[in-house]
């Protein structure tokens, strides 16, 4: 169902763009040598530059440049060989120099796109306007003292990629999938950990609405710093409805910045002062422009990891997985890595079933991330091998899996220890069958009279007597022989 808002005066559509800030994964900050690691004691990961001391100068971290370019490739975007650092000027407690170093006029990455799944199950292409490199601000803490705010500059100067989409988003679902795709890509690339709870990925949303059929944009409202996919979708829906209601009531509203309040499910206006700001951008004279060569860019491209879309296609073409399975297995880098390790040299379809079945169920049950799975991918693969070569039955395998999940042991050891190996000694099985047949002469007579269905009952009895250790195919075969005699 295409996302539409039915109003009194007609049908409205959403016009929405997203600005996502991704904290770059790097050892040190973008312009200083302080650690970029999350956490730490207050003001510990702070170089003098990060606290805005006089005479301190920025020096660009090569890793941050590389991470932006990698991400640019992930967004199918143009890498700009010439980019420039600008100062964005405003006063705030968490901004130690009174300006943020960012890129306004010439960003490092230009136009690109992401394909997302829309609410109709189809594909929508969301244009990327740009990706630029900038510094994060520090943290201000307001709840430790009634009249004071406390400032911590550990995050100040950590590298950020700001990824700006075109106003191509037409539904909350598209926005949600855009964010999930983006997160998946940066995680695959290792450029950002994509953690929205810890703020390493943050989203600003530009929302406007217009009557279906209109081609011009009406004015937009920016919703700042929404920190989960769910909230982003809710905020968009709420804001779009608010705007439609205002238009339909004949009211005007300002082009402003608002905050999303998930508790009261509303968006609220921020101080109007914020809205009137002229950030007075101009090129930072402390940093020469960033000029990079084709060779440099090509080197990064050559070493890119396989991206989710490509991996998915390969899973389908080479491993014969269904579209559904492939999509699930590539949805994040860790799952794909787990699957590929487990499936190496094995029947991929069987391994996929185990990963998406028993493994996912157990991980979900215990709230464990796949990279911390107690069953290693190597061990899961070994379990599949034991089924394939007939050492254990599928039923026993499920039991073994649960023990593996609890003990982290490898499956062969568990099978050995618990004596779960399938019985393939025909003598022992024949003896077992003889006993069962002898105990049920009436049923044997019925089979001989043509009631074939009862054979299944006998197999069941054999399995029960052997506690599942008999290979069912073998049991069947021997039963047939005995009944013929």
């Amino acid at each position, binding site marked *: 169902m295409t996302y539409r808002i039915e109003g009194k005066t007609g049908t409205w559509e959403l016009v929405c763009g997203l600005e996502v800030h991704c904290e770059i994964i790097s050892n040190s900050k973008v312009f200083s040598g302080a650690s970029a690691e999350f956490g730490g004691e207050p003001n510990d990961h702070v170089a003098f530059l990060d606290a*805005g*001391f*006089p*005479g301190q100068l920025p020096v660009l971290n090569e890793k941050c440049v590389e991470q932006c370019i990698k991400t640019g490739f992930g967004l199918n975007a143009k890498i700009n060989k010439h980019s420039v650092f600008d100062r964005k000027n405003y006063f705030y407690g968490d901004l130690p120099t009174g300006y943020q170093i960012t890129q306004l006029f010439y960003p490092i990455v230009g136009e690109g796109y992401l394909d997302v799944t829309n609410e109709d199950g189809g594909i929508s292409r969301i244009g990327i306007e740009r990706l630029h490199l900038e510094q994060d601000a520090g943290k201000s803490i307001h709840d430790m003292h009634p009249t004071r705010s406390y400032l911590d500059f550990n995050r100040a100067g950590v590298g950020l990629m700001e990824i700006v989409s075109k106003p191509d988003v037409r539904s909350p679902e598209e926005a949600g999938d855009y964010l999930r795709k983006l997160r998946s890509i940066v995680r695959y690339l290792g450029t950002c950990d994509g953690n929205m709870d810890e703020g390493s990925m943050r989203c600003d949303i530009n929302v406007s609405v217009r009557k279906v059929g209109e081609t011009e944009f009406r004015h937009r409202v920016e919703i700042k710093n929404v920190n989960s996919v769910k909230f982003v979708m809710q905020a968009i829906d709420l804001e779009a409805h608010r705007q439609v209601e205002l238009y339909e009531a004949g009211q005007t509203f300002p082009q402003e910045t608002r905050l999303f309040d998930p508790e009261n499910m509303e968006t609220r206006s921020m101080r109007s002062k914020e809205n009137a700001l*002229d950030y*007075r951008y101009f090129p930072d*004279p402390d940093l020469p422009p960033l000029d990079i060569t084709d060779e440099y860019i090509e080197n990064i491209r050559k070493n890119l990891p396989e991206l989710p879309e490509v991996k998915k296609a390969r899973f389908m073409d080479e491993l014969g997985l269904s579209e559904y399975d492939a999509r699930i297995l590539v949805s994040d880098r860790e799952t794909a890595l787990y699957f590929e390790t487990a499936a190496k040299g094995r029947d991929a379809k069987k391994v996929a079933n185990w990963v998406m079945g028993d493994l996912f169920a157990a991980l979900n049950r215990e709230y464990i991330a796949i990279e911390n799975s107690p069953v290693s991918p190597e061990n899961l693969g070994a379990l599949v091998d034991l089924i394939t070569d007939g050492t254990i039955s599928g039923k026993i395998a499920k039991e073994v899996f649960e023990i593996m999940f609890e003990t982290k042991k490898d499956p062969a050891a568990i099978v050995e220890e618990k004596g779960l190996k399938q019985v393939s000694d025909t003598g022992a099985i024949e003896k077992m069958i003889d006993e069962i047949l002898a105990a049920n002469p009436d049923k044997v007579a019925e089979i001989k009279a043509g009631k074939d269905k009862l054979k299944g009952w006998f197999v069941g009895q054999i399995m029960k007597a052997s506690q599942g250790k008999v290979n069912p195919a073998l049991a069947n075969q021997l039963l047939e022989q005995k009944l013929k005699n």
Partner: protein
Amino acid sequence: MTDLTELTLTDALKGLKEKKFSSVELTKAYLGKMEELRRLNAYITETPEKALQMAEESDNRRAKGEAGKLEGIPLGIKDMFCTKGTKTTAASRILSNFIPPFEATTTQRLWDAGAVLLGKTNTDEFAMGSSTITSYYGVTHNPHDENKVPGGSSGGSAAAVAAHMCAGATGTETGGSIRHPASFCKVSGFKPTYGRCSRYGVIAYASSLDEPGVLARSVEDCARMIEVMAGHDPKDSTSSHREVPEFHKMLDKNIKGMKIGIPKEYQELLPANWEKAVQFLKDEGAVLMDVDMPHTEEAGMVYYVISQGEATTNLARYDGARYGVRENGETLDEMYMNTRMKGFGQEVRNRMILGTFFTSAKGYHDYFVPAQKMRSLIKQDFDKAFEKVDVLFSPAVPIEPFTIEEAKHGAAKGRFNDNYLMPSCLTGVPAGCANNGLQVIGRMWDDATVLKVLDVVEMCK
């Protein structure tokens, strides 16, 4: 013993080397002079204890045969350079309690070469001015006439050098702030090519113009200091990788056949020694010729727009939150306003307000960018001139120092009157002023030739 402060830096080095006196003795002599002439207010902060300790360490090194290039030489440091553990104020109330926890690269190199810190010299507040009267610590007096200003903004350094209160001093130029006071105080001053000396640890005024440099009693003294301070610094992204020659060894007093251009536009006002100096250079075998620098007149205006625009954002960090003098307020904005209102003097505040306009969306588009284009035209003037000549020659500041009274009533504010100095700041070329008020400007990175010619110019008394 004769007064050791009479020696130039070069001669003092020689005396130290020949063990005629120790660094402690030399340092004590300078500390004595500083005390005697404290009324000139050349220093904001004197560091006698540190000086004596450093001098003693220097003597020990020399005894062990580990003498550096400036071993035992007592220096004044403009209070725009951050000195670790020693108060650094930029002559502003807002930094009047600031003790840097780090050292500027250029001063670190001076200490590594064995130099001794005597104290921090006075300047216009945040180096904004050309008379050293906007200092929170009061005006510096010109040693040659105490009713007059020393020029600025490196006025404290120039006065200290002129009055023998140090063997040499550091300065910074943004719009002529080394050559101007050098000229007013009749000492030598040198501003190397932009990018030669690291700006790390130097309090910023306008980043694309700021360049650390030196003032001393002779060109050779300047050359010895600058070759220690210059050179690539990984902490400054605008610091050049180019090799630094041993400048003082290149002063061979031979300018035979050298082509020296005299910009027509730099001859509107000429000092009394001008004709004699021109003749002197001819006699030394130089070829003198007129050159055109048609955009000279625009330099002051371009400087006005760009320096204020950049300064506004460079000074945004002084908000009382993390360092510096804080004035409390109910809200954060109130604290900022109170701190910055009381912390900065009026000249600085005014420049920040106007600078805001030049970086605003409208001001940037209508004035800042066009001014940067005009800056390109001024650079073209230099490029064209240097196709014909090796260096340019002119007076530095073609007027006599004004009195402190005049300066306070705005004489120094004659906004665009540093036209002989500003074009070389905007373009980043090396330039120096000899102790007779005459200046030499050279090609980018050709600091050596500027010093070499200046060394000859200085012989013309």
